[in-house]
């Protein structure tokens, strides 16, 4: 579904990503984990094209993503939904309008069709009753669920999450993870940057461990957590688990 080959990305002198190779199969849930500054967000953003890689290739369903072919590139990007750490809901729009704008202006749907889709997805994340609320009236967990519904409205085949629960109060993390788990159960292909080790262990099929801009280790999630191979992964896990 997604294939990343020899991806490099630097910010000035800083090598954020170094020779990344990664494959994600259809329906697979892959969690990217690693210490702060290891390049997880950068990788996730490069896959969607929010950051332009310095070199390397990204293939979507076997086809190379190439920004120099804008029309095709845009079509490819539409197959991916993106969820941000800080939600990035349109603050001047209601929940419903947040979910409808891209449908009417990009997907060319009528208002009625767009509203129907939006309401279905808002119901799925449990927020149909908030349709007329503005984002600043929602809790963090609610905002993130709306952001997920908004991305789903464009009917993506892949969902990318960049630390979707890191900006949330602890009691709201679960409601968002539940929505994500439900998505995965329904067969969505997902790449999730997260610090929620419980989620990575239970829901992900595979864990990719990054450190210093490189993939240090990747393994089926259960295997990774019970029996990490590299020293750096062991070290990381010993730091995140308090016992």
């Amino acid at each position, binding site marked *: 579904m997604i294939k990343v080959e020899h991806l490099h990305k630097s910010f000035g002198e800083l090598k954020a990503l170094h020779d990344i190779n990664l494959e994600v199969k259809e329906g697979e849930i892959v969690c990217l984990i690693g210490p702060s500054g290891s390049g997880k967000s950068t990788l996730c953003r490069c896959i*969607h094209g*929010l950051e332009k890689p310095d070199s390397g290739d990204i293939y979507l369903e076997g086809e190379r993503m190439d920004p120099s072919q804008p029309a095709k590139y*845009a079509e490819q*990007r*539409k197959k*991916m*939904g*993106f969820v*941000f750490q*800080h*939600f*990035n*809901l*349109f*603050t*001047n*729009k209601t929940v419903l309008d947040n979910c409808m*704008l*891209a449908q009417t*202006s*990009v997907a060319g749907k009528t208002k009625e069709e767009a509203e129907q889709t939006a309401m279905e997805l808002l119901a799925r994340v449990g927020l149909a009753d908030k349709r007329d609320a503005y984002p*600043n009236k929602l809790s963090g967990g609610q905002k993130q669920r709306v*952001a997920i519904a*908004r*991305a789903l409205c*464009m009917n993506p085949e892949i969902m990318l999450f960049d630390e979707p629960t890191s900006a949330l109060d602890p009691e709201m993390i679960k409601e968002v993870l539940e929505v994500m788990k439900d998505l995965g159960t329904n067969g969505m292909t997902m790449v999730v940057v997260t610090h929620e080790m419980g989620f990575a262990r239970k829901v992900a099929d595979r864990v990719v461990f990054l450190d210093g801009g490189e993939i240090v280790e990747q393994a089926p999630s259960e295997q990774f957590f019970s029996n990490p191979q590299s020293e750096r992964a062991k070290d990381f896990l010993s730091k995140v688990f308090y016992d």
Partner: protein
Amino acid sequence: MADIFTSDNLIFMLKGAGVSLLLALGAVVIGCVIGILFAAAKLSKSKLLRAIGTVYVEIFRGTPMLLQVLFFYLGVPVLYQRITGTRMSADPYMVGLIALSCNSGAYQTELIRSGIQAVDKGQWEAGETLGISYPVMMKEIILPQAFKHIIPPLVSEFITLIKDSSLISNIGALELLYSAQVLGKRYYDYLDPLILAGVMYLCMTVLTSYLSRKVERRMTLSD
């Protein structure tokens, strides 16, 4: 002395105030459209567009407004005649409106540019991941949020325009200041008409800032 304040003369002055207000209103609206276009140019990826935006802003902010008014009124017709060979007569109201709008457009370009830049980058990124086009993003998301930030400076721009519209008196448009001068000349008394004009300017400017503060307060409440 006091016989200058006949109802006819008062109406004459009020009409002048109306012209001033209309000129300022027209210029703030047209200047806003100009400002949006040049702000977009200054923020664009194209070097050429950015340069055009910068040159425009620098010219209109860096030369006296009176020079700009006279240039449009006296200079442009000459230019027109040199190029086309035919004469053109300039209407002082029209020329005044154009000059004020162009000048205000330069100031509003900078205001709107800073307003756009103050909008959270995440809004653009969300639009990008949803595939929303630049013009739709601008119109639906970025400009509405930008304008919320810059309403106070836009109101002071409007107040400046109410006062600066008096420069149009130099080309014979019967706005408030020129109306006062006309009465002064007729009665050999400049003091009373000038005071009256000043009071009228004050009414317009003070009322505007009062109204804007009220609107602003309501907007922050609804936030």
